[in-house]
């Protein structure tokens, strides 16, 4: 095939520019309102996943399969957190993914390594972390990730 680089005007571009429509701000507000109806269901799903996570996070190092399961649960919970309306939950789940990735790449292990992020999840779910405390909490989790990432095996 002869390489081709060309200007492409997609249907989305044409449609989005058509007159009418709604203001971007209004569209976002309406979408946020629609998500309120999914809040309770999303919270229930998060609660169920927290129980499954707790069963996977033991005092010993998780096996690669367990790490993959933890990552998968965190991924799904991140999806639900878009509608759950739990402040900080998305950020903490993001750190849980970071922690599983760091452990996956590292042979280093320290007992209780996943406990800080599990505790942070519990706090975020209970909605008891004041907004001003969330930043330092996440920074602490980032330091945990960095500690394990520092031992990462280069493949």
């Amino acid at each position: 095939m002869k390489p081709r680089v060309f200007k492409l005007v997609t249907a989305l571009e044409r449609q989005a520019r058509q007159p009418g429509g709604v203001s971007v701000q209004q569209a976002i507000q309406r979408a946020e309102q629609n998500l309120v109806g999914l809040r309770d269901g999303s919270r229930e799903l998060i609660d169920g996943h927290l129980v499954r996570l707790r069963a996977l996070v033991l005092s010993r190092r998780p096996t690669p399969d367990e790490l993959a399961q933890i990552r998968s649960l965190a991924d799904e919970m991140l999806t639900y957190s878009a509608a759950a309306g739990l402040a900080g939950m998305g950020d903490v789940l993001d750190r849980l993914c970071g922690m599983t990735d760091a452990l996956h790449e590292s042979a280093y292990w320290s007992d209780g390594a996943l406990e800080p992020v599990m505790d942070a999840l519990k706090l975020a779910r209970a909605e008891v972390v004041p907004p001003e405390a969330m930043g330092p909490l996440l920074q602490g989790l980032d330091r945990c990730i960095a500690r394990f990432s520092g031992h990462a095996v280069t493949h």
Partner: protein
Amino acid sequence: MVTIPDPTSGTARINLRQARVLCIDRNAQGLEILRQVLLGFGVARSFSAATQEEAKKILQKEEVDLVLIDAAFDDRGGTELLHWLRHSDLEPNRYAPVVLMAARPTQRAVCDARNEGANFLVAKPITPAILMQRILWVARGGRMFVLTDNYVGPDRRWKSTGVPDGGVGRRKEDLKGALGDAREENMSQAEIDSMIKPQRMSL
């Protein structure tokens, strides 16, 4: 780095009433969240697929204007489906903007998404504001499309910093001629100042 303007500021409008959006996620709640967000954006028609097979059937049957794929979809990864779509002969769907969604994507995931032709990779959680930012970006257009044996997708080059040292430019606008050697020494700032002295003036 690309800076995307904050969509919540200003008076910008968007019309997605005619847009057909395909959402691909193995997770039913994930699909419902996307559907509700798109409904809020004014998208009247959205399709949902929970498996590769479902997604392929829809892509073969319907024209879609935007594809949203969960990167963890179907265990084999959304990039596999993206590769299939970009290298298919499904017109115009193969050119449709594709946004991948991933939980804390690794550098490898970002590279894979980029190399398979994703327009964007968005980190979860997908809030309405973030998704709108990305839709506005792809709806703004202006990005060239590349068709080669190895790569099909939007142009991955975001900036032009010139031809690499010792390389040959492949862009039309790259100069073909060779630069000659300097004829004389470069001037120092003091020498320039001695020739063009800044003057203080008052009115």
